[in-house]
């Protein structure tokens, strides 16, 4: 019984300890000229969808949930966002080469169509980020019009 107590204490101390590690915040408020919405003429409804359902992990500005303040969740989200941005960053979309833009647009359409994105682990918490059938067709048909 004693060793369980010891382990619990160690874990607790570690958990408290890591709360003091600073975290990088992904909250750049300036909207770059390379932003997706400045690269294309994006209708307002699509802009809203992108901002609610995609930008948290795929742009330079994240609307953080309250529990982001707690480690190790902060780290997990930080990693997750870095990965998301490496794959696709709407804030820097305008800087992509023409070829990469086309590739990304295609991938966005197919990911949305196949319900791969937004991730179900994300919509579980952000229920407003879930895409309706109409929103999905809106995105896909807009992309198909703009892909070339």
């Amino acid at each position, binding site marked *: 019984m004693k060793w369980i107590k010891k382990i*619990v204490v160690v874990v607790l101390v570690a*958990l408290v300890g890591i709360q003091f590690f600073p975290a*990088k915040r992904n909250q750049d408020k300036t909207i770059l000229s390379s932003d997706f919405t400045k690269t294309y003429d994006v209708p307002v409804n699509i802009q809203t969808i992108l901002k609610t359902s995609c930008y948290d992990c795929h742009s330079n500005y994240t609307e953080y949930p309250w529990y982001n303040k707690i480690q*190790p969740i902060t780290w997990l989200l930080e*990693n*997750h966002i870095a990965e998301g*941005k490496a794959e696709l960053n709407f804030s820097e979309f305008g*800087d992509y*080469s023409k070829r990469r833009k086309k590739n990304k647009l295609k991938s966005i359409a197919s990911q949305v169509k196949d319900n791969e994105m937004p991730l179900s*682990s994300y919509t579980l918490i952000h229920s407003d980020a879930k895409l309706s059938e109409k929103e999905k067709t809106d995105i896909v048909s807009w992309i198909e019009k703009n892909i070339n």
Partner: protein
Amino acid sequence: MKKQILTIGTAMLFIVGSATFIGCGNSENHEDESHEHAEGEEHVEEGHDHSDGHAHEHAEEGGEHHENTAAFEGEKVKDLSLIIDAYLELKNNLVLDDEAATAEASEKMLAAFNGFDKSSLDESKATEYAEIEETAVENAEHIAKSEIYHQREHFVGLSEDINDLIALVGTNQKLYLDFCPMANNNKGATWISEIEEINNPYMGSKMPTCGKIQQEL
């Protein structure tokens, strides 16, 4: 005693909570595993240069840019032979509906890109080469970690990349550009083949002979 139980309870809650999150995170990022073998080996690293002159303060941090870390040993190759070989192997595995072997071939393609001596290209071609490499590597990375359905989606883009690459750099291999109107959700898609016979990588065993030769490369 009550206090102790409370403390232990809180700790448990924390542990369970963080374990859940770690669990979630892992299921989503299995991409690292495939590259792990590259570590410790002497691998040639290409300067992945995003010299667009833009001051992205975040770009430098946290490894936001992809880096092709596939290991390549030996002398760099001045022609496209390794890249084309990997592409054809990948294509032939898609024909066989073999997801695992397709993924393996795409790893070879990543290594082949690292093994290509791009410094031998003249300056006028360097930018276009860099753009093609960037998307080809991205497509190959996705193929390496996806289900066959998704592999085929990225194969559409990869085939365009390799076709453009051959147009840019050239090859003395005899190759054909094939086209299937039904691939890519009936939008049509091309692929490159080393044989005259049609073996469709998009349809696989469902419709192996769909398509025709569009062009000799």
